[in-house]
């Protein structure tokens, strides 16, 4: 039964693709709701790529993007919309996905639908293992957190306290740091997991102070809580006491920096992309993406994941000549290497995850009073250490 259906799907979709000269790409992301900013960045990255690469045409084929909105992590809705994109809109590629559960929900569809999935953000290592048709062009929390442990060690810090929000990515960040820091010979004196809905971080800072750690490694979802956390770190005298603030770059995403302001200066983060990255590719990208998003201050990391995701999709379309063959498309980009706005990157042929440079950055202030993430060190060609932790 199952096989019949699969072959039916393949037959129908293949003949429709052969005659159609418009190739549809379905993008699922948070375009409204509290995370609308990240969805906007998806769109900006995609628009920027299309604008700079042939204005919506690959050879004879037109490219059309179909957006679907999942405002907050809602896997059931995500799956229903992805299903609709495949059967109703006839998309040949699925892309986007800000939240891990939304991406996870879609993975069982891919093989049956003969559609590759390009994850443009969702950062849990395990996603990629759920189907051979998934490619990720963003990062994983393990990938961006682990180098921070090396930084801590290099700077002579031996006792660290980890403070993370109590949900999947937070726990990932905690594990990544703990594992790596332990391997480097450091000690994590205490690990605190706090509820996502925490408004007042003073009691947490008190714990940090009491722990006697030399540095605090933190992970919170980007957005309002970050602001309170960074403020509490300053106001409770941890900065003066010399407790170093370490975090993956989600915490100091560029769109939050104006609000974070002076208190954030000096925070060390490790991440795959800074809007300020100094390269010709990035200059061109920032210019195009700023134009697409309207307000350049809203530009943040999901845009680059989306931009490179489009690059991969374009390569897949070129390789398949517009016919729908998910496996062939994915195979075509395994090992693909190119110069991204974030630096040199490559799709790992084994894992299908992106191998990239991870940068150590420090929040700094421009002369004109604006803030940016200043890259001060590069960890080259980092894979995803988190995959080892996936059973």
């Amino acid at each position, binding site marked *: 039964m199952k096989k019949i259906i699969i072959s039916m799907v393949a037959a129908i979709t293949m003949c429709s693709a052969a005659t159609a000269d418009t190739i549809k790409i379905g993008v699922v992301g948070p375009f409204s709701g509290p995370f609308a900013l990240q969805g906007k960045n998806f769109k900006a990255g995609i628009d920027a790529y299309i604008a700079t690469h042939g204005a919506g045409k690959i050879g004879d084929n037109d490219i059309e993007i179909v957006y679907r909105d999942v405002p907050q*992590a809602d896997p*059931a809705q995500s799956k229903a919309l992805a299903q609709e994109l495949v059967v109703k809109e006839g998309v040949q590629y699925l892309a986007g996905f800000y939240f891990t559960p939304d991406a996870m929900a879609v993975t*069982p569809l891919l093989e049956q639908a003969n559609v590759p999935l390009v994850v443009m953000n969702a950062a849990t290592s395990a996603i990629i293992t759920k189907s051979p048709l998934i490619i990720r062009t963003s990062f994983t929390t393990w990938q961006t957190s682990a180098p921070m442990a090396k930084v801590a060690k290099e700077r002579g810090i031996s006792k660290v306290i980890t403070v993370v929000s109590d949900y999947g990515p937070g726990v990932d960040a905690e594990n990544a740091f703990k594992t790596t820091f332990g391997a480097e010979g450091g000690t994590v004196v205490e690990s605190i997991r706090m509820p996502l809905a925490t408004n007042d971080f003073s009691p947490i800072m008190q714990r940090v102070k009491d722990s006697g750690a030399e540095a605090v490694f933190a992970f919170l979802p980007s957005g309002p809580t970050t602001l309170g956390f960074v403020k509490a770190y300053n106001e409770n005298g941890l900065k003066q006491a010399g407790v170093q603030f370490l975090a993956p770059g989600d915490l100091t995403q560029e769109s939050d920096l104006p609000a974070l302001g002076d208190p954030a200066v000096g925070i060390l983060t490790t991440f795959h992309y800074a809007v300020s990255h100094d390269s010709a590719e990035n200059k061109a990208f920032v210019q195009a993406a700023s134009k697409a998003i309207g307000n350049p201050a809203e530009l943040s990391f999901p845009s680059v994941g989306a931009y490179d995701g489009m690059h991969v999709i374009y390569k897949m379309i070129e390789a398949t000549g517009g016919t729908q063959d998910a496996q062939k498309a994915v195979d075509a980009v395994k090992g693909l290497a190119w110069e991204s706005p974030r630096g040199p990157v490559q799709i790992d042929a084994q894992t299908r995850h992106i191998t990239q440079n991870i940068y150590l950055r420090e929040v700094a202030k421009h002369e004109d009073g604006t803030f940016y993430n200043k890259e001060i060190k590069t960890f080259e060609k980092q894979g995803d250490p988190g995959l080892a932790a996936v059973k």
Partner: protein
Amino acid sequence: MTAVNEIPLATSAPTGHGHLKRDLIGLAIISLFAVLGYLVFPNNLALLTRIIAILLLVLSLDLVTGYCGVATLGHAALFGSGAYAAGIAAVHFGITEPITMVVIGAAAGAVAGLLSGAIILRGHGLSQLVLSIAIIHLFHEAANKASTYTGGSDGLSGIAPDAVFGLFQFDLWGRTAYIFGIVLLLVVFMLLRQLVQSPFGMLCRGIKEDPVRISAMGASVRGTLLKMYTISGAVAGVGGALTAISTQVVGLDSLSFTMSAEALVMLVLGGTGSLYGAFIGTFVFMFFEDFVSAANPFHWLTLVGALLIAVVLCAPRGIYGTVVERLPSLWRRRS
């Protein structure tokens, strides 16, 4: 007194037979819409199935809010419990037979209903709302903590239900899931029509209007409401299980305050205290949301807000309730 005589006895006595006839008409209308949905939106079946699952939640909410007068902003606790129970049974215990999963979902929903009912019924009015809010947050946190079983915030994935009766595989178009959902809905609807017309249903309506009178008649108000809460939990649990089966994944959002509040909004939108109101509210809200968010995903919230305000101003008893009120002659004839 004279007015009394003027109203003729033309209002024919409701008979058991008449009720059955009306139920069959309702059933026929729902089936008709189900077939229409299948034919008109053959490519939106996944979304329609999702609407059915939410509708089961709203129907379940109507049982306690519409028929018993209990205000709650935490009803997703019952729905989510059903979804997680069915999902955990499939992923961790290998129970992938869909009908068994529905039964497990219903049972878990009933237990969650009993539990949250026991707490919520301690309050009245505003305090009821607050207790229900506290409960949904506790359920949500508990599911987040028990990530070994629930997958935490990453969601519980890997649910792979068997074919229904070993024959009908859950397919990409969502046809099996849709028909499965419709059948569940029809069965639940039939049972609920029975329930609300039964002596027990009458007792519940009595409690909604005057609990003191009910206890003076010797019936236990708390006991009756707890029973209704448990039944309501089973219905919500069926909805949850349907989500788990049709989407093969369960997320923390199914245990969220947002989902509870949306269910309440849908119910009040359609009109409380009648099963048809729940239907109309759910469909109007879900379609409006889907339509507006597809047309302009960036600003649909404003329009949904405007819709809610318009309903309060123009149809204070909900869409169905107000239509029924404005068409009294028609209503008399039908009842």
